[in-house]
């Protein structure tokens, strides 16, 4: 039969080829010349999270500004940024391209928890600095197992600790009710809160209610929490459910001290839809200057940022907090390169990234400082509480530092 012959011939070809395969040569990677430093990045310029793509663009614009002003120690930054569409396989492909083909000195600000998870092991095996990743998960601060990876923004656990510390100080009779999303994000916050409360956690927390991201509403959970007699409510929800929770609590006349996670602190997407009156008195934790908040309009950090945006990224939206975020993190990256001096080896880059001492970023809240060490790969660990006055978030109290009291 011809079919059988064909099969045999093709399989023979396959085996023949298998024998031909052999090893590839090893390579050494630097990514730095006398005039250039290559930094690699992936961002979701397309796909479901493309709203964040502006972060990659604003970073590129900031590096252009630095290059126009002479670069870092005489070297221009060559910022190579690829689209990963927020897809983990694409992120793996693109980061491998950056590391193996473009031979970047470091990978910087890759965005997204799933995308960074996909490259986490690879990039540490390759010993490439994986700096200031754009995600709030806690696992990026694990220098023991992943010495080449470093986070940036305060992680969810840190934020949970901030609230816990405030509750311990100010509400000795707290009966805490918690609503959380039943996934890593929700559990991260929950862990931060429980760790922060310490030994008292089981006594202080009177009820924990969870919901699935696929649930239609959280109404029944809110009723249960009210009935538990809780007088403090920690609301760990994404915007859609935060709106429901704020509304429902208000409707049934439950008036606890209401802590709302930073994830849902947006005026436009949460507080306005939930009702500004119902949102009055909410407490959240912030670490950056809100660019739409009029209290910063005369602030030097803010006006510098606006001037930069107008010159280098005029198409960027001045109301988009992501553009402030990208600006901040790009400045931090430049600081690391400055600290490296002339030794831009990968070892020194990660060493200097883990050696930031009381560094100030222009769009962090006043008084906040960046600190890292070889055992602390979480640059921003400070947050400040803010109360919603019916119009805007009003900062109050001192800056909390979750790990350095």
């Amino acid at each position, binding site marked *: 039969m*011809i*079919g059988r*012959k*064909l*099969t045999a*011939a*093709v*399989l*023979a*070809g*396959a085996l*023949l*080829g*298998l024998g*031909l*395969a*052999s*090893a*590839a*040569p090893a390579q050494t990677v630097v990514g730095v010349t006398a005039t250039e430093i290559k930094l690699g990045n992936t961002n979701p*310029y*397309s*796909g*479901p999270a493309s709203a964040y793509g502006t972060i990659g663009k604003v970073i590129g614009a900031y590096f252009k500004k630095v290059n126009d002003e002479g670069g870092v120690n005489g070297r221009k930054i060559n910022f190579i*940024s*690829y*689209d990963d*569409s*927020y*897809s*983990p*396989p694409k992120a*793996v*492909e693109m980061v*491998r*391209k950056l*590391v*193996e*083909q473009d031979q970047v000195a470091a990978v910087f600000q890759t965005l*997204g*928890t*799933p*995308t960074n*998870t*996909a490259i*986490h*092991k*690879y990039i540490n095996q390759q010993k490439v600095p994986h700096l200031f990743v754009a995600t709030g*998960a806690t696992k990026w601060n694990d220098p023991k197992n992943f010495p080449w990876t470093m986070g940036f923004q305060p992680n969810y656990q840190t934020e949970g600790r901030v609230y816990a510390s405030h509750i311990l100080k100010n509400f000795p009779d707290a009966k805490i009710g918690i609503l959380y999303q*039943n*996934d*890593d*994000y929700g559990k991260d916050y929950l862990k931060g809160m429980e760790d922060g409360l310490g030994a008292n956690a089981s006594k202080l927390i009177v009820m924990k209610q969870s919901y*699935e*991201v*696929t649930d239609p509403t959280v109404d029944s959970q809110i009723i249960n929490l009210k009935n538990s007699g809780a007088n403090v409510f920690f609301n760990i929800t994404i915007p859609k459910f935060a709106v429901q929770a704020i509304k429902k609590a208000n409707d049934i006349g439950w008036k606890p001290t209401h802590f709302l996670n930073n994830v849902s602190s947006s005026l436009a997407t949460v507080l306005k839809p939930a009702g500004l009156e119902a949102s009055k008195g909410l407490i959240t934790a912030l670490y950056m200057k809100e660019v739409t908040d009029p209290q910063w309009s005369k602030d030097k950090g803010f006006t510098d940022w606006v001037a930069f945006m107008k010159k280098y990224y005029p198409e960027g939206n001045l109301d988009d907090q992501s553009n402030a975020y990208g600006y901040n993190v790009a400045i931090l990256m430049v600081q690391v390169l400055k600290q490296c001096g002339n030794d831009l080896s990968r070892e020194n880059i990660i060493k200097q990234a883990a050696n930031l001492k009381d560094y100030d970023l222009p769009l962090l809240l006043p008084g906040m400082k960046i600190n890292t060490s070889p055992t602390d790969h979480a640059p921003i660990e400070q947050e400040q509480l803010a109360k919603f006055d019916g119009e805007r978030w009003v900062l109050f109290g001192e800056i909390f530092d979750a790990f350095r009291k």
Partner: protein
Amino acid sequence: MNRRASVILAVVVIAFAYSLPIYMSGFRLFQFTQVCIYAIALMGLNLLTGYNGQFSLGHGAFYAIGAYISAIMMDQWAIAYGWTIPVAGVLCLIVGFLFGRPALRLEGLYLALATFSLALAVPQILKYFEHWTGGSQGIVLTKPKAPWGLKITEDQWLYLVTLTVTVVMFVLAANLVRSRVGRAMVAIRDNHIAAETMGVDSALYKSLTFGVSAAYTGVAGALSAVAIAYVAPDSFNVFLSVTFLIGIVIGGLASVWGNVLGAMFIQFVPNWAQDISKAAPWAIFGIFLIGFMYVMPYGIAGAIKRLWISQVVSRVSQKQGGEPLSSQQAESPSR
């Protein structure tokens, strides 16, 4: 193309594919591993759409199921990756067959919509079984190393494994479509009433084709889990299913080689588009797509076939000095 020529071509191409690790390493080889994986997935979808005439906008779902079956087996029970691939194939065969039964009542666009809902639902359902699937964070796996002390890198080993699976799957598919079953599939596509009159059990063959198609895509998904060493719901969004459809149409419907060409297209063209314009990569991709469809309405494989046929026709007509073959014969799409 006659049989002998196609066998020679297949052997040459496969031998060349096996020699790739000599010329390239690391990242490039990883891209070709992905081409192989896509080619298997496209072969699956092509069996369904190209040969059997059923539309699916949901094959990303079977790809995801295959990937998760493989990942869960490796992660929860530490089963070697090699065993997870056939298991993923068999389980996807069953899922595809069961899905194909009720979907029989749906024709054409309605079936496309029903399968589309599958593509929408699966990533969310995966998050629901967090204990097994790791929720939205997915499952991190370890890349397999080359066994038996072979002095090759992980990438080279993975590529060779993937290529071998691809070759086997393609040989099986090529035999299938030339068999009695394959002819029945095509007959149903061309005219299912006529096919039934000839004694073909249309319902059974359609569900079976759905099952086999899902099995191919599931195997591809399982290989992708091994190659990427990570699975997450975000890896399998709706766009993946659309990408597969693009792949088979560009490559060539009802063509075995078309799947390889289509896989190369969906792997490399988005990257080129990005190199041309960062601001609007998908607009560039769209232009490529329209350009290909305009120049090669039957896909790349169809265009090559037409070129071949027109040459043969001109040679034959020169020899005979008589009338050229009817133009319809030269125009017919690849089979």
